[in-house]
């Protein structure tokens, strides 16, 4: 379990800095796909570990993009919100040990809501910290919504791809 998550950390970090950080759809969209790593951490992850791994992920992305602290701040905030989001989203199955947060165990509807909440929270924090002002909030809001939508799309595609693989 630990090895899987370390492997996932590296793969998602590289995907983010080599692919998604360079995707310039219409100039203002910045898909912060690395939040997917925080989404997929197991339910039984201890609170402190959750926060520290999010911090490590955000800071690593920052190192590559010359934006020291911005991604780290957003990632830590997302990790902080995650337990509350999980508590709000009741599911048909209990969150018993061995179950992972994903479409495979908890169904499409649950994951869609879960990902929407956390990805939106993450992008909101990210773009507000980046802009560091509430001036021109409409522009920031546009960036938040557009970038969240792209990230959500990629996260769902990633989920569906891996379900297919498991069935084979």
């Amino acid at each position: 379990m630990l090895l899987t998550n370390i492997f996932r950390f590296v793969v998602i970090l590289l995907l983010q800095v080599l692919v998604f950080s360079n995707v310039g759809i219409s100039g203002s969209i910045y898909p912060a796909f690395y939040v997917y790593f925080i989404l997929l951490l197991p339910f039984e992850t201890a609170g402190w570990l959750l926060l520290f791994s999010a911090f490590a992920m955000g800071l690593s992305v920052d190192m590559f993009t010359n934006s020291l602290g911005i991604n780290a701040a957003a990632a830590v905030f997302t990790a902080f919100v995650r337990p509350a989001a999980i508590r709000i989203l009741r599911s048909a199955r209990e969150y018993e040990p061995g179950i992972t947060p994903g479409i495979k165990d908890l169904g499409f509807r649950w994951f869609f809501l879960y990902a929407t909440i956390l990805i939106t929270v993450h992008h909101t924090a990210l773009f507000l910290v980046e802009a560091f002002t509430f001036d021109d909030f409409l522009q920031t809001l546009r960036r938040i919504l557009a970038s969240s939508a792209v990230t959500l799309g990629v996260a769902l595609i990633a989920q569906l791809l891996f379900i297919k693989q498991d069935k084979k």
Partner: protein
Amino acid sequence: MQNLIVFLWRHNFLFIFLLLEALSLLLVVNNNYYQRRVMINTTNDITGTILSSVDEITAYIALKNANQILSEENARLSNRLPSAFMRTDTAQFFVGDSLFRQQYQYVSATVISNSVNRRNNYMKINKGRRHGLRPDMAVLAPNGVAGQIIEVSQNFSSVMSMLNSNTRINAKLKNSNQTGSLSWPGHNYRLGKLVDIPSHVSIHLGDTVVTSGYSHIFPEGQMLGTVQEFSPAPGDNFWEVKIRFSVDYNSLQYVYVVKNLMRDELLQLEKKQVTQ
């Protein structure tokens, strides 16, 4: 004391969150020159190596396009060569003195990472202190201004792009020589904003905007863009001019770093002016 520890332990999730968040925000706020000097110099060489190997692949794919840009650039540069020299107009000549003395020296470099979709965009280029680069040197693209160096490590440099809220370039209208300040308002990576042009000056759509050369960083007369739209700034005697950048910052690959060989002399002169 024991109660305090129990309290902290029970709410450790909240306190670790506050601690890490405060740390992150501290990094953001101090993410100015000092903090960058501490952090990025150590990381530049690590992340730079990874990024430059990826860049080799993308450079190969873009090779055809790059060749074309380079040949255009060569043609343009050979036309402009005299502009890199300054005439030494002194009546006394001694042995070894020459008519022209070089003021600007160009070093070519490759962009290994770049962005256009943030509010504050930076680039990394594959030349550093070993190649004589220093902070505050100008970075030019084949057809305009790319930015200026803010940090150097042994083999790489961080460049503050034109597309950055901290970038201010002293610019002038080519035909009227009126100077103003060019910045990037952030909506669109093709459009910049020129302010401080007095409203009695007549501007035309399509007018060329070039660097003024007053800052000792950029050589005079470097292309910045063309006037796309202009309107009087509200309640002010100045124009607010929208500039279309000549450079497509999304496809930057090859750049030139400009060393001003007389910058120290100019700065010293200015320092004397202030102290008097």
